[in-house]
């Protein structure tokens, strides 16, 4: 090496050190966020595991820690103030020191903890040795911005390190959907969020807790940035006490089994989950299952945004190719970070496919994700992601469907084969002042009342649990009424034909309507798609759910009308809307993303939860089950006759089995006659370009170019920044043009 080279190397080293010591802002870390895999073993872990582990001792520690997590979950769920978390939208977990989820609570939504390895890795990389931060026993970090780990900003998490003497042996985490964090819309997520600066408090990991005490200066900072300062403090305390209890229980394990055994357990459990998932993937048939679905709304305007999920089994690897998905939209909240898609796959696997396996990021260690940057599945840090679950819920459904296909003929399966669960956050969000004079802004726990998909051997369950967590609760109407100024005029009412039809039908889902009560400023908003194009899908010939919208009756105090016509208490959405019995009121039916607005007393806001997808050919549905659906009001007579082809007496519901068989046989023949061959079908129906009048986003018929609605098309990475015009400006321009035409 020459002297010149030596000097250059020394100068470069000096420069590198200078730059490293003088970073002005430590922000999200792309390298950390790109790695969903399990960390390599630490030296300590490697030494312990090389000595071999006593599997009985490991099982005892696991059982004890599992019960500690479930116990703390139970206590926290009862003490939190956030409406979502009190319905189980939370999780507790133990992590290894380097940030691998070793074990999570069986209750609730494990997805919250499953995505926090990113955050712990970030803290370990940037704060562990940072002289002004660091951490010791009794410290706790708060986080809510998903760019450091997590799903979206309304979620808040607390991490506390666990020490044995001086040795850092792990982390306890209590993670939940908090809700209100001072975003442009109440509740931390909403349709009008148009930039990352509208997302509210952007909490990086901050040391909120020192020596087991909440620091009041930092607490006030976060509280002051929320419409619900009291809820924020209550939940800080609930999370802190959960983490402290978990710490105590972990230390009990250390006292009983020794610190080596606890460290060895944590690591061996991570490795067990990764190995077991790899073994299960290896056991699947090699091949590709492709699922394409559409998000039909940006939350401000209609757009057909393709989401493409191709699952390929290759030996013991699972490759999830998401290319072809819609480009990101820079001023709408429906983009998702890839970290969010990874957690979607873990959730689907742990809740729907391998329910016997614990939910952990380790179970996707053998998964690889292929994507194009700056798409809705791989959003940049500069676009809003407050409603990232719009994208995440799609991959949950895609994973359910793809795995059902891989498993159908596989020699071993771990759960039922079934159609798509419902997958929209169909809850009313609210904001304003309540009857107790508190400032509020959050969502109703109705979000969890999604219906289950039909199974290969039985019907799906009605409004049972969200697609992202099988062990949660659904909000009670009475409890909502106690704290919020509205009355549930329609409370959880099943309506006919809100099921995915099939040999086995998807679960039905309830509708609900809230009528404003009182004169304080208070209003509603909603955050769903699926009003133009069904959101979840059926399986093997089963139909999807239908589409849903928001209906509202305004401009009149309906309490007056109800007083005169008490039988209106029995009415459902469709009776209100079709009969329009209240004169002088305005009736509107809208797509399911409705901007926040204040509502006057007696105005009515109505929505419905969605159905699960159907399974199999409708003509194979047992006629007794069709009659049962009729009796229970789950389907209409039209559906029984014209979709299931059942011939029966509408009064007695007695089925004519011979005539039904003949009708079904005739329909099978009619299908063969009306169906076209592939070539005929393609030449008559398939087009080179998406329909001209459809705002289409994503690849079309396998094109490499991505379409981008009004922005034309281009190869991934070569599209311009997509900023949608304000729909109100568009409407004003149209009205002006109309005026100009009229002279």
């Amino acid at each position, binding site marked *: 090496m020459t002297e010149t080279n030596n000097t250059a190397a020394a100068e470069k080293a000096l420069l590198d050190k200078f730059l490293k010591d003088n970073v002005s802002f430590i922000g999200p870390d792309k390298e950390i966020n790109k790695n969903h895999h399990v960390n390599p073993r630490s030296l300590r872990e490697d030494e312990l595991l090389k000595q071999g582990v006593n599997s009985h001792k490991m099982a005892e520690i696991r059982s004890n820690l599992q019960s500690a997590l479930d116990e703390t979950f139970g206590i926290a769920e009862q003490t939190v103030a956030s409406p979502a978390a009190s319905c189980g939208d939370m999780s507790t977990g133990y992590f290894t020191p380097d940030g691998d989820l070793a074990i999570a609570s069986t209750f609730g939504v494990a997805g919250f903890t499953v995505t926090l390895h990113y955050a712990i890795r970030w803290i370990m990389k940037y704060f562990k040795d940072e002289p002004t931060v660091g951490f010791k026993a009794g410290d706790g970090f708060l986080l809510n911005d998903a760019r450091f780990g997590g799903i979206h900003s309304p979620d808040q998490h607390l991490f506390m390190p666990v020490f044995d003497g001086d040795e850092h042996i792990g982390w306890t985490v209590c993670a939940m959907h908090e809700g209100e964090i001072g975003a442009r819309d109440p509740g931390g997520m909403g349709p009008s969020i148009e930039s990352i600066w509208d997302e509210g408090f952007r909490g990086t990991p901050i040391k909120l807790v020192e020596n087991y005490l909440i620091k009041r200066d930092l607490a006030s900072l976060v509280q002051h940035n929320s419409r619900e300062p009291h809820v924020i403090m209550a939940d800080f305390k609930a999370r802190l006490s959960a983490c402290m209890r978990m710490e105590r229980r972990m230390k009990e394990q250390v006292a009983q089994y020794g610190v080596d055994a606890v460290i060895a357990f944590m690591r061996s459990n991570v490795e067990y989950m990764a190995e077991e998932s790899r073994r299960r993937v290896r056991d699947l048939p090699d091949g590709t299952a492709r699922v394409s679905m559409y998000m039909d709304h940006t939350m401000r305007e209609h757009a057909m945004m393709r989401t493409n999920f191709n699952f390929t089994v290759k030996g013991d690897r699972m490759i999830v190719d998401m290319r072809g998905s819609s480009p990101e939209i820079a001023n709408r909240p429906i983009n998702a970070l890839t970290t969010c898609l990874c957690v979607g796959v873990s959730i689907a696997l742990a809740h729907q496919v391998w329910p016997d396996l614990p939910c952990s990021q380790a179970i996707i260690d053998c998964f690889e994700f292929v994507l194009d940057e700056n798409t809705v599945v791989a959003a940049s840090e500069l676009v809003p992601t407050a409603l990232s679950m719009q994208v995440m819920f799609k991959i949950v459904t895609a994973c359910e469907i793809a795995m059902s296909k891989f*498993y159908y003929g596989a020699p071993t399966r771990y759960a039922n084969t079934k159609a798509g669960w419902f997958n929209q956050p169909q809850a009313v969000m609210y904001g304003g002042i309540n009857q107790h004079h508190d400032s509020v802004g959050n969502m109703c726990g109705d979000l969890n009342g999604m219906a289950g998909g039909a199974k290969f051997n039985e019907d799906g369950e009605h409004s049972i649990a969200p697609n992202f967590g099988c062990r949660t609760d659904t909000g009670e109407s009475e409890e909502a009424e106690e704290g919020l100024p509205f009355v549930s005029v329609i409370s959880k009412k099943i309506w006919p034909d809100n099921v995915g039809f099939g040999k086995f039908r998807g679960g039905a889902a309830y509708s609900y309507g809230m009528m404003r009560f009182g004169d304080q400023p208070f209003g509603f908003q909603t955050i769903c798609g699926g009003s133009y194009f069904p959101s979840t899908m059926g399986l093997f010939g089963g139909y999807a759910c239908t589409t849903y919208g928001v209906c509202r009756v305004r401009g009149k105090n309906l309490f007056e009308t109800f007083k005169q016509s008490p039988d209106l208490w029995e009415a459902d959405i469709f009776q209100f809307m079709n009969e329009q019995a209240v004169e002088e009121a305005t009736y509107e039916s809208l797509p399911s993303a409705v901007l926040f607005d204040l509502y006057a007393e007696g105005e009515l806001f109505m929505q419905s939860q969605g159905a699960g997808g159907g399974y199999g050919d409708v003509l194979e549905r047992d006629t007794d089950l069709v009659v049962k659906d009729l009796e229970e009001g789950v389907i209409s007579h039209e559906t029984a006759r014209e979709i299931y082809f059942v011939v029966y007496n509408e009064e007695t519901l007695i089925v004519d089995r011979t005539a039904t068989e003949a009708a079904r046989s005739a329909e099978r023949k009619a299908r063969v006659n009306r169906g076209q061959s592939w070539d005929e079908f393609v030449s008559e129906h398939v087009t080179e370009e998406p329909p001209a009048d459809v705002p289409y986003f994503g690849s079309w018929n396998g094109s490499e170019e991505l379409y981008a609605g009004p922005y034309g098309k281009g190869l991934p990475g070569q599209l311009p920044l997509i900023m949608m015009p304000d729909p109100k400006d568009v409407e004003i321009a149209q009205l002006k043009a109309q005026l100009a035409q009229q002279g």
Partner: protein
Amino acid sequence: MKYLATEYVQIDLDNEVWECRTCDHTLGSARENYKIFTKIYNRNPQEIHRPKLDPTKYEFTFSPNPKVCAIYEFYCPNCGTMMDVEYTVPGALPLHDFELDIDALKEKMQGRTPVVDAGEGVDTTQALREGAHDHSCSHDKNYGGQR
């Protein structure tokens, strides 16, 4: 050997063809998309998901919009069983939704008994007992059917 690919189609691995599971009709080469051998119908989604609100009063009726949504129905050309439905944008090519690697499948199924009924494969605890990890005795007790 017959491999059950879905509720309605199976693969005859010896002859490498797709077959209808309802009527045993041979559809075509197992190395191609089985949908190519079906009869396809372009269904207006409003015939299945009928409007619940009066379409003369409202644009949004709790029924899919045919301008952006079509249902492709795939029938067995022999017996008329509905093998699959696909919700898509009008004009889109039917999706090649399930493609099995026939060579790898033949290898994987060698010496194994194929599933002949959809309900057969479910036995979690058994799988975990047979699981290829050396401390399985404790894991199957705790994870088998735990949740």
